[in-house]
């Protein structure tokens, strides 16, 4: 059930995160996070290491339960989803994990086809064809399909994770550091792939990256997370004159500035 207010408020928004809080023991990670991902757009979240970027995505997927706040996807409150409704909800998403998180008990092609076969009831043969097609898209040849994840380099694992995330052509895709660990050329291939996946298909994406070259290329909008809150959010073109000292320090990669790294000696 959608309240009339949320329809008008969140019109054009695919994902709305309102006042989400999350702590682990005494450590507060998210402290009233507000973020909106517009439908069919690519939002990139930047922010220092350990600021809770991955935690944010896991809250949206329900892998972690927020302590407070609300997450709406297509106007639907995700906290109330159970059973089949939750299964249907999760079928909207594709996710690339920061550490790839490939199933090491099955070959690469089955990893990519997994969501199709198990989650969506696609036949094995058809799923296999789709898997190989997606592997080609991420620059991996047919010979890789039969290998096991442990036989791949880190960058290759990342690309398999990417193929798995896009395999079912989901409505929403989360990319957690898609280009980390890739060489500059492969990074660009992946950036192009993400851009192609989004543009013209109506897919909504939320990506996390430290790589500003990548962010500028794939983002329609950029948001910066700091101390559990979004401290700046705007169109990609505006990132260079945000007027926000935190953003300025981050994009220029300066050790001096308002953001103090907690380096313990």
């Amino acid at each position: 059930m959608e309240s009339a207010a949320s329809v008008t408020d969140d019109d054009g928004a695919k994902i709305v995160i309102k006042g989400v809080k999350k702590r682990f023991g005494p450590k507060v990670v998210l402290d009233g996070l507000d973020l909106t991902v517009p439908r069919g757009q690519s939002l990139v979240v930047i922010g220092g290491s350990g600021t809770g970027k991955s935690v944010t995505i896991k809250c949206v997927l329900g892998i972690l339960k927020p302590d407070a706040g609300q997450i709406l996807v297509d106007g639907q409150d995700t906290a109330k989803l159970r059973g089949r409704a939750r299964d249907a909800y999760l079928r909207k998403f594709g996710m690339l994990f920061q550490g790839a998180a490939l199933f090491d008990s099955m070959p690469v092609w089955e990893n990519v086809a997994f969501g199709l076969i198990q989650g969506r009831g696609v036949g094995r043969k058809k799923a296999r064809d789709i898997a190989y097609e997606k592997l080609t898209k991420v620059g991996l040849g047919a010979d890789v399909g039969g290998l096991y994840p442990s036989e791949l380099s880190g960058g290759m694992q990342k690309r398999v994770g990417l193929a798995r995330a896009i395999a079912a052509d989901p409505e929403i895709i989360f990319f957690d550091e898609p280009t980390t660990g890739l060489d500059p050329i492969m990074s660009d291939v992946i950036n192009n792939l993400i851009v192609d996946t989004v543009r013209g298909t109506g897919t909504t994406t939320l990506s996390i990256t430290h790589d500003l070259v990548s962010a500028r290329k794939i983002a329609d909008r950029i948001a910066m997370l700091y101390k559990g809150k979004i401290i700046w959010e705007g169109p990609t073109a505006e990132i260079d004159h945000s007027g926000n000292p935190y953003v300025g320090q981050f994009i220029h990669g300066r050790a001096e500035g308002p953001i103090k790294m907690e380096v313990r000696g």
Partner: protein
Amino acid sequence: MKFFTAVGRSTLELLGEVGRLSIFTADAVTSFIRPPIYWSLVGTQMMRIGFFSLPVVGLTAFFTGAVLALQIYIGTARYGAEQFVPTVVLIGILRELGPVIAGLMVAGRVSAAIAAELGTMRVTEQIDALTTLATRPVKYLVVPRLMAALVSMPLLVAVADAIGVLGGYVAATKSLGFTGSIYLNTTMNDLNGNDVMSGLIKAVVFGFLIALMGSYNGFNSKGGAQGVGAATTNAVVSASILILVANYILTNIFNILNF
């Protein structure tokens, strides 16, 4: 004061643990009946849990049966009652030692393997990845293992029973001077359905505990390699203790019911 704080804290932790385990168990058991059920995974797990446990269960059962015959002989011979050796060995194996020895061996092998595998999947986010691929981890990982253990354990115990009795037979005929045909005849005459069934019922319960403890500890492992190691140890220890406690309770119940 420190003492009371510590006691209070560990009591709360224990209660929390019991609560989490209950929720996990309820989740696993209710997932049992609702489709989809991954039958091919049940098959794979039956091979791993049941078939590959045969050698270790068979060997331990054989020597347990053999040593049981030797010890019972010492006791019965004092009263000139050696003729009861086959019967006591039979009942001891069927009702207690078959299921308990098989249970403990499988707990060591299988609870550990399940906890290590699921624990690694947990810390490498593979379990989270299952969720994002619209597959429920409990259904995909826990239910097949539970089902396989529930079916495999009675089969393993049936084998352990037969081999355990054989061990007793070998010890009695080789070391104690029993005549083979007499030993076998006594065994066959005293073979009783209730003795067999009570052991098999225990086996089902032990199978459940083994798979549950392996899965629960694996699912809740934290941290890296060390966390997985701790989960593995906890799985084996908790499964073994629960098996021995459950065995005592079941034996009591069977006695009360005259079963």
